[in-house]
């Protein structure tokens, strides 16, 4: 208290001004990141024209070969089988009624690691390596449903918009950083490089779990897939695909187990 009394009026006034500024800016930044950004990204992503979504998938498919994705080694029968499995899973409507997603499943071979990912408009790519890693159709369904969850909740475009808003905001605040922004945006525009937020991954997991429960009465397959991928990722420290962008696998399994609990009541 004596310290406060020793301050001159002017010092007190400026202390109040500085403390208030810090408090308000801290809370404003927090709210911007956790409330304004997700909300506005979702709203902007929804209002983008359908043609952008289509173009994103086209350019995404074209760029697959740039990532050393080769033609699938699966037989025509195998492809037909999984396509049929996939078509049965396609939801009738997207989370956002104004968006009409066009779902399609593509097969590729990718030496690097088992992988599956979604593009903006409903193109989902699964690698031969992922399919051979999985034991049965239920597990393939789990992986496909997780990716469908990303499409259903529009995560690809939402994360692109989010990155764009952040880069624009940063370049306004810090001056021109267009170079950084370009890299970020082009990185996020292809599904392969897209890093979704933990929230998005959790949402996709929950979507898949709920759909699996509806289909089979439990989401065991999802838990099995996550455990299986964990073994693979433990073997290979460089593993950077289906999982590295995803929250810790153990956490996801725990989360899903809680889910099973919820659903069983």
């Amino acid at each position: 208290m004596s310290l406060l009394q020793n301050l001159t009026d002017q010092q007190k006034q400026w202390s109040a001004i500085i403390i208030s500024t810090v408090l308000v800016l801290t809370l404003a930044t927090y709210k911007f990141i956790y409330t304004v950004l997700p909300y506005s990204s979702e709203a902007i992503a929804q209002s983008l024209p359908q043609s952008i979504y289509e173009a994103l998938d086209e350019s995404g498919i074209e760029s697959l070969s740039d990532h050393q994705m080769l033609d699938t080694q699966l037989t025509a029968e195998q492809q037909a089988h999984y396509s049929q499995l996939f078509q049965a899973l396609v939801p009738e409507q997207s989370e956002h009624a104004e968006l009409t997603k066009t779902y399609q499943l593509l097969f590729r071979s990718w030496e690097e690691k088992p992988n599956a990912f979604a593009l903006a408009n409903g193109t989902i790519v699964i690698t031969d390596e992922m399919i051979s890693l999985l034991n049965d159709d239920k597990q393939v369904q789990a992986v496909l449903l997780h990716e469908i969850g990303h499409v259903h909740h529009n995560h690809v475009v939402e994360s692109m918009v989010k990155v764009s808003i952040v880069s624009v905001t940063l370049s306004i605040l810090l001056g021109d950083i267009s170079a950084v922004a370009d890299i970020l945006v082009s990185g996020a525009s292809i599904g392969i490089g897209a890093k979704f937020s933990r929230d998005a991954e959790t949402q996709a997991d929950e979507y898949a779990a709920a759909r699996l429960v509806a289909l089979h009465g439990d989401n065991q397959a999802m838990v099995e897939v996550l455990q299986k991928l964990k073994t693979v990722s433990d073997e290979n420290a460089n593993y950077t695909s289906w999982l590295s962008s995803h929250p810790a696998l153990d956490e996801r399994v725990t989360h899903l187990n809680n889910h099973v609990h919820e659903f069983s009541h």
Partner: protein
Amino acid sequence: MDMQALQAEEEQLRQEIAKLPDEQKQYYYQQEKLKVKDPDTYAVLNWFVVVGLHHFYLGKFGRGAINIVLILLGLAFLELGGWIVLILVFLLELPQLFFSQRIVYRYNNQVMASILDEIHNKGIS
């Protein structure tokens, strides 16, 4: 009070100051330099980064604190209508930007008068 009245008021105060003996005059100017406020700083604090910091600048801690609490609450409950509070604070505080010259002029006259009062009452020598 309009600008002309404020100028007249200042003129009157300046005449009073001129009548002070040299020693008191020196004390007066010391105090004035310390307490007088700058309208441009006031205007900047009114809107720059955080709205409403100008109250602190003029020593109105209560008013400033209410403002900051309202802004913090508005931010914290942004999605539950807090944004309305933010807009209200903004609408309430921003007009002072356009009157900043006059507000600070008036404040400075009051400061001058109170220093003169102090000199007259305490008989500072």
